[in-house]
């Protein structure tokens, strides 16, 4: 296996808070990699650094062997790194289908956007196919703001897929949605993974992570603590300490999930 996406020695401070310190992470090509850790351990900040939303103070991020450390979000996306957000971010005042079309032009010049129509037949077909894949094709003409939370999550996943990224970063895909939908989402991820997509997933739902991921990295206080297969991570006493010792969050389910494993 080869490393597709890698962060090494990444540090970032916000004021006095060291959100990331010398953090390392490798994502193997074709894998589903999980990223877990207590609240405030820097998972989302790492996502933001990788996708260009936050500039690191130190360290490098490489994708496909290319250094993308200080690249802007649009450039990172164009290279093939897609992501979703913890609180879903869709474009609420345009239609669901229009949401799908935004990500299609990442590789075309902005000037050309002026001279061409909103979408071509192929783009619409492709968009509808993906909407169908996540199961919200019926809602294509609806204003996106009218979607429920779960539907928004699906839409966000779908419009990232439009650009056919090589690796997809999911920030809490199972957060705040019902069990049926969680299973549905896991199913989509597996299907896509079989088709060759690499995933990096931040998630608090241990069952979800442990059942889905090939490799799990545990973060603690801004750096990577343990990396291994789900079974190895479960067995590692350091992980339990990280969750219990952190003391800054009351995530009982997490504690139980890790402890009972």
């Amino acid at each position, binding site marked *: 296996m080869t490393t597709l996406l890698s962060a090494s020695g990444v540090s970032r401070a916000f004021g006095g808070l060291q959100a990331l310190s010398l953090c390392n992470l490798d994502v193997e090509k074709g894998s589903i990699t999980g990223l877990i850790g207590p609240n405030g351990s820097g998972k989302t900040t790492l996502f933001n650094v990788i*996708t*260009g*939303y936050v500039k690191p103070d130190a360290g490098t991020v490489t994708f496909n062997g290319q250094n993308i450390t200080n690249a*802007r*979000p*649009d450039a*990172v*996306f*164009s290279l093939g790194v897609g*992501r979703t*957000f913890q609180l879903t*971010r*869709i*474009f*609420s*005042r*345009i239609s669901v289908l*229009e949401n799908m*079309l*935004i*990500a299609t*032009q*990442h*590789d075309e010049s*902005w*000037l*050309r*956007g*002026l*001279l*061409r*129509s*909103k*979408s071509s037949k192929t783009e619409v077909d492709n968009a509808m196919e993906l909407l169908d894949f*996540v*199961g*919200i094709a*019926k*809602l294509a003409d609806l204003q996106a703001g009218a979607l*429920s939370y*779960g*539907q928004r999550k*699906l839409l966000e996943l779908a*419009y*990232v897929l439009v*650009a056919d990224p090589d690796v997809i970063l999911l920030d809490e895909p199972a957060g705040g949605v*019902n069990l*049926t*939908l969680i*299973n*549905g*989402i896991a*199913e*989509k991820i597996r299907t896509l993974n079989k088709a060759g997509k690499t995933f990096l997933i931040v998630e608090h739902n241990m069952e979800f992570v442990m059942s889905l991921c090939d490799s799990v990295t545990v973060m603690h206080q801004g750096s990577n603590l343990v990396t291994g297969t789900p079974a190895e991570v479960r067995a590692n006493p350091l992980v339990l300490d990280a969750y219990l010792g952190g003391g800054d969050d009351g995530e009982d389910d997490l504690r139980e999930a890790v402890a009972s494993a």
Partner: protein
Amino acid sequence: MLSKKNLWWVLAAAVFALFPLVVTNPLYTTIGVFTVIYMACATSWNMFSGYSGYIALGSAVFYGSGAYTMALLSIHLHMAAGSSQFWLVPVGGLVAMAFAAPIGWIALRVRRHTFVVITIAVFFIFQLAAINFGFTGGTSGLNLPFITWGFQNYNTPFYYVGLILVVFATLLSMAVRRSRFGLQLLAIRDDEDRALGLGVKVSAVKITGFTMSAFTVGMAGALYALFVGQIYPQFVFDPMFDVSIALMTFLGGLGTLTGPLLGALILEASQQYLTVTFSNGSLYLILFGALFLIVIIFMPQGIVVYLRDRVTKRVERERAAVAANDIASPDVALGGAR
């Protein structure tokens, strides 16, 4: 076969085209000229600010640049007064664009709240410059060569050129709304950072939109200068202009195609009428301010959206009535859940 919607457009266009042929009183045709000028400006303003959500309150910069371009070129090129001067109208638009690009580059580096304030500041730079520079004639303004065609039909050519600007601005706005570029502007309005993360080149898109919208406003300013024959910095760089076109668009419906047209038609026509009727400027300010408040407080979405929502609600009620009979009406199920 015309659809019902297109029929309305054709009907409206016919009314506008025939207006100066039917109404010949110069008092009213003057109001007509100002109204089409503002309709073009509001539509053009909406094409950037309405679609992108970046509210610009310095459009008078472009209006004024267009007006001064017309005046200065007419004077310095020793143009014969008359219809040949209309060729300077697009030049005014181009000059406005030339100013808009660097202004946009500076002002669009910040987020939308600060952007508003910067556009206001830039506006004051231009106003002060027009007052203080020598070549603008300072506060005594500039006089254009006097146009001598007949008094009775004096307004008509201006009206039609203004109408052409309205059509141009509307078609452009429509084309932008249908283009990929327009979709990107809407995406920026809804969530700029997310759009960036999906590969939208937000800076380039914003600056292009801002610059494009200056074109028609500059042309309108040039037409205005030609129409009134003399320009003063305080009238072409007028803060009321900035706010008026924004208000017109809000009144009609921000981000809609017909909204700015309708808003400008209602507001500018009544404003001109009020000015003629109430010579008392203070009373006029109070009336205008009050109208302004009523609109924004009670119809924050604008007339077009307000009416559209009412129609939609009616349709929905009817649909609900139908659906009530049809128990098996399928619920739109959550996607992943089987």
